[in-house]
C-alpha cells in the first residue's frame, strides 16, 4: 500500500499541468459465484478486481486514467498522463493539501463477511435453494440458483485533503429457469438481494418467497390476455413498482441528463412537475438498503436528497463534475461500477414518500383499469418504458384476469402529474442493478401503492 506522501505526490503530478482538482480511487474487490441445479453444482468462480483511477478536473473538463498496475512508479506515470490529457496546459496548477482521514459510519454493518464463510457452506446454500425452488411447481422445466457475493474495499484520496475508505458487502441469490404448461413456455429470472453478508441467508423463508413469487408470476403470465389500446387508470402496487420513479424521473434528474439538455426537467427547479401528492426522495444513508453506503465513490458522505416535494422540483442529483457543469455542489451521488469508470451522478435508494390515501379504494373506485403487481425492468430518458411482469385487468372495482405483453411507456412529467392517489404504506424492495455511463450500480426503487388517473396504453386494436 502507498504511503500518504506517495499519494500526495501522485495528486501533485496529476495537477502539474493546470488542473484544479485531482482524485485517486483505489479498489480491491473480491467476488464469488456458485451456480447450481438441484444437487448439481455446475460452476464455481472467484474473481479479484484490483485497480486504481486518477481523475483530474480543470473547470468542467476532465481527464481520467485507470490501470491495474499499482506500483508507485506506474501511478506517477498514470498521473503524468492524466495531467497531459487535460486540454488546458499551464505551468503548474494547484498543489494538493495535506491528507486528513475522514471515516463515516456504514449504514450496512456486516455480521458475516463472505470471505469468512467456507465454499462448502455456499455450495450447500445453492443446493438447498435450487432444490427448493425446483419443487415449487410441477410446471418447472428447469431451475438454477446462482449465489453471488461481493466484498469491495475502496480508498478515495483527493487534492482537497480528503482521505477516506469504505468497505461494502453485498449478497445475492438468483433464481432462473423455464416453466411450461399447456398454455406455453416462458423463461424467468429474479434476484434475492441484500446489502449484507452471509447472514442474509439465515432466514430461508425470505429467499424462498422470492423464488415462489417469481415462479407464480411467470405461470400467471402464461394465462394472460392482451389488452385493447386505450386510456386507462393504472394502479401500481407498493414495493418494487417504484421502478417507475427510477425510469420516469430518476435518470432525467441526474446531472448528466440536465447538463446535456436531454431531460424534460431542465429549467424546472422550483416549478410544479408532478401532482401535489408526489414527494420523491433519493437517500443513500438508509440502513440495510442495497443502494446505501457510507460514502459515494468520490468520498462524499451520502445523504438524503429531496428531489420533488409536494409536486415541486427541488433538486437534481450531482456528482462533483456534474455539479460544476450546473453550478451546483455534489449531492453525494458520484458513483461507479468500479475503478474502470469515472464517477457520474447516479441514484441510490429512490422512493416515493408515503401519502394518505386508502389502498383498497384505489382499486375499488375504478370501473375499467389496470393493476400492475410487478415490473421486470425498464428504460429511462426523455421518455420511459417499463416491462410489466405481472399485470391484471381491473373490472368494476375488482382485480380480475392477467394481462400479457404489457409495456408502459410515456413521458415522465406527463405521468407523474396524473398521480391522484398515494397509499399510506411505503414498502421497500431488495434491490437490483441500474446501468448507465458509469457502469452497473446497486440501487433500490420503491413506493407505496399509487394510482395514475390515466395512461395511454398500447394494445390490440
Amino acid at each position, binding site marked *: 500500500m502507498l504511503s500518504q506522501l506517495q499519494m500526495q505526490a501522485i495528486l501533485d503530478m496529476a495537477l502539474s499541468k493546470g488542473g484544479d482538482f485531482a482524485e485517486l480511487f483505489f479498489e480491491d474487490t473480491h467476488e464469488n459465484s456458485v451456480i447450481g441445479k438441484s444437487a448439481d453444482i455446475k460452476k464455481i468462480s472467484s474473481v479479484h478486481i484490483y485497480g486504481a483511477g486518477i481523475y483530474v478536473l480543470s473547470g468542467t473538463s476532465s481527464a*481520467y486514467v485507470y490501470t*491495474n498496475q499499482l506500483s508507485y512508479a506506474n501511478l506517477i506515470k498514470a498521473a503524468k498522463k492524466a495531467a497531459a490529457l487535460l*486540454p488546458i496546459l499551464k505551468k503548474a496548477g494547484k498543489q494538493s493539501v495535506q491528507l486528513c482521514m475522514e471515516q463515516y459510519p456504514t449504514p450496512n454493518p456486516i455480521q458475516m463477511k463472505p470471505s469468512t464463510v467456507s465454499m*462448502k457452506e455456499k455450495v450447500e446454500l445453492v443446493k438447498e435453494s435450487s432444490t427448493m425452488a425446483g419443487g415449487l411447481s410441477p410446471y418447472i422445466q428447469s431451475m438454477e440458483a446462482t449465489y453471488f457475493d461481493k466484498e469491495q474495499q475502496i480508498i478515495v484520496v483527493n487534492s482537497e485533503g480528503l482521505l477516506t475508505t469504505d468497505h461494502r458487502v453485498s449478497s445475492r441469490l438468483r433464481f432462473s429457469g*423455464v416453466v411450461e404448461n399447456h398454455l406455453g413456455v416462458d423463461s424467468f429470472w429474479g434476484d434475492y438481494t441484500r446489502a449484507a453478508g452471509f447472514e442474509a441467508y439465515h432466514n430461508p423463508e425470505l429467499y424462498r418467497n422470492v423464488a415462489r413469487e417469481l415462479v407464480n408470476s411467470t405461470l400467471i403470465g402464461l394465462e394472460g390476455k392482451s389488452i385493447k389500446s386505450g386510456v386507462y387508470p393504472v394502479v401500481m402496487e407498493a414495493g418494487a413498482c417504484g421502478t417507475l420513479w427510477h425510469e420516469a424521473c430518476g435518470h432525467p434528474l441526474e446531472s448528466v441528463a440536465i447538463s446535456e439538455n436531454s431531460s424534460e426537467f431542465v429549467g424546472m427547479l422550483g416549478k410544479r412537475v408532478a401532482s401535489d401528492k408526489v414527494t420523491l426522495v433519493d437517500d443513500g444513508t438508509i440502513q440495510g438498503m442495497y443502494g446505501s453506503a457510507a460514502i459515494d465513490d468520490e468520498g462524499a458522505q451520502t445523504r438524503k436528497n429531496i428531489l420533488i416535494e409536494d409536486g415541486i422540483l427541488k433538486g437534481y442529483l450531482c456528482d462533483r463534475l456534474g455539479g460544476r457543469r450546473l453550478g451546483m455542489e455534489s449531492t453525494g451521488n458520484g458513483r461507479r461500477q468500479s475503478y474502470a469508470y469515472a464517477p457520474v451522478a447516479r441514484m441510490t435508494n429512490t422512493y416515493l414518500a408515503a401519502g394518505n390515501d386508502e389502498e383498497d379504494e384505489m382499486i375499488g373506485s375504478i370501473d375499467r383499469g389496470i393493476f400492475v403487481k410487478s415490473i421486470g425492468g425498464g428504460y429511462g430518458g426523455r421518455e420511459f418504458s417499463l416491462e410489466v411482469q405481472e399485470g391484471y385487468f381491473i373490472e368494476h372495482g375488482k382485480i380480475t384476469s392477467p394481462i400479457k405483453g404489457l409495456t408502459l*411507456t410515456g413521458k415522465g412529467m406527463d405521468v407523474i402529474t396524473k398521480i391522484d392517489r398515494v397509499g399510506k404504506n411505503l414498502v421497500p424492495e431488495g434491490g437490483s442493478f441500474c446501468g448507465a455511463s458509469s457502469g452497473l450500480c446497486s440501487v433500490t426503487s420503491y413506493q407505496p401503492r399509487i394510482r395514475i388517473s390515466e395512461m395511454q396504453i398500447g394494445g390490440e386494436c
Partner: protein
Amino acid sequence: MLINLQEYKKKLNKLPAEVKEAEAEGRLEDKVKVVVRDGSIGGVESSEVATIAVRATGERTGYAFTQDLSENPMDLIRMAYENSCYMNGEKQPLHSSETGFCGAITSTPRGTSVQEINGDGITKMKELAFSIEELLHTQIPMVSNSEIIVEAVTTASHVVNSKGVDGYYESRYYTVEITAVATMGEHNYNGRSFQMVECLEELKENTIIEEVEQSLLNQFNPGEFTSGVYEAVLDKYAVCNMMITLWKVFSAKHHLEATSIFSGAYGSKIASETVTIVDQAYDEKSGYYRPFDYEGSYGNDVTLVRKGQFVGLMHNYKTAMECNEEVTGNAGRAESLIAGMPSDYTVVPRNIRICPGNRSVEELLTMMGDGVYITETYDQFHSINQTSGEFSIPCKGVIIKNGKKEMAANALTISGNIKELFQHIVEIGNDLHTEIFFTGAYAYGSPSLYVTDLQITG
C-alpha cells in the same frame, strides 16, 4: 502490447498431481476516449487493464480470475482447482496443441497492425471530434447541445494451457458516437448515430451526421397513431438494438438448455428466404477481430441461417462436442451486462449480422407503400424473451404513405413473436450497420428490414 504469461506457462508445465490440466488467458485492454462537448474538450480517458483468467481441472473444472498481477500464478491455479472440488458434472475440455491455436497474430487479415496511441494519435482523435462537431452544427443549425465521443479500443489476448496451446493476438477498432439535442418547434429532441471502423481514416463523417439529422427529423412534430397490424420497415438502428438479445437464439448453450425459441428447430425453415445470418471472426468494416476465442478455438466463420434455413449454431468447445459439430470459436464470458468482471464461460458471437440485401431504405419504403417506418427501439434487455419468442418493444417511428414520410409517431410499441417476425421479412436493405456491445464482448449488426403483419400500438 505484452501480457507476461511466462510464469503461468512454467507453472502449467509443472502442475501438482491433483491438477490434471489447466489454462490461463491473459487479456490486456487499452482504451483511449475523447469527448468533445459543445465546442470544447469535455473529457479524455486513457486506460490499460490486464486480467488473467484461469481454469483448472481435477475431476471437474473450476475458475478464478484476477486483476492483481502480483498474485502468484500457482495460487490462482490452486484456487481454481479448489473451486472445482465442490462441483459435479463433467469437466470442461481443453484444446491440445493439435486442435487449439498456436502462434501470434499482430495484424488483421487485411494487414492493419496495432501501434500505440500516443500524443499524436490522441491529437488526431481530438481533431476528428472537433471536425465532426463543426460539421454537425453547420449542417443541423437547430442542434443546441452535442457530444462527440471518439474511442480507440485495443485488445491483446494470450491463451496458454498445459496441453501445449499458446496463442496470441492483437486487434483494434475505433468507434465514433454522436448524441445531439435539437430544438425544433417548442420541443427538444434527442438524436444519435454511431460508427465502428478498423482505421479512423475510414470513418464517413457525412454519413454519421446525416444519420443524426434523420434521427432528429424522424421525431419532429409527432401526431396521433392508430394501433393496428401494419407493414413496416424496421430501420437498421432499430434492428441492431434487437440483435443484442436476438443473437442468443443461435447460441448452442441456449439451444441445449432449451431456452431458445428455436430449440428443436435446427435444420428447419425459421425465416423467409431473404434471411441469411452469419457470425464471423473478422469484419473488415467494423474492425472487430477475434482470430481465436478464450479457449484457443480457431475463429471459424459460421452461417447460422441460410436463406431462411436454420443451419448453424455458435459453439464453445464443450457445446461443439455435445452437438458433435465443429468448433466455431465462440467461447466468451460476457453474454449479458453483469456487475463485476465477466466470469461465465459461455457462448458469445464475434461479428453477428443479418446479411444485407440490395435495396436502399428508400426503395424499401417505396416497395412498402403505406405502413410504418420504425426508426428507434428501446429497452433491449427486457423487451424480448428469447425462450418464448414474445417481444413487446417500445419504439418510435414515422407513418409512411405512398412510400413517403408523412408524420412522426412516438410512444409506439411493436409486439409479437420472433418466429412470426422472421417469417414475415419480405426484403432486406443494403445499409448494414454495426455496433459494439457495452462490454466490448462482441459486435452485432443488421441492415433495415421490410416486414409484414406487425402489430404496432400507440
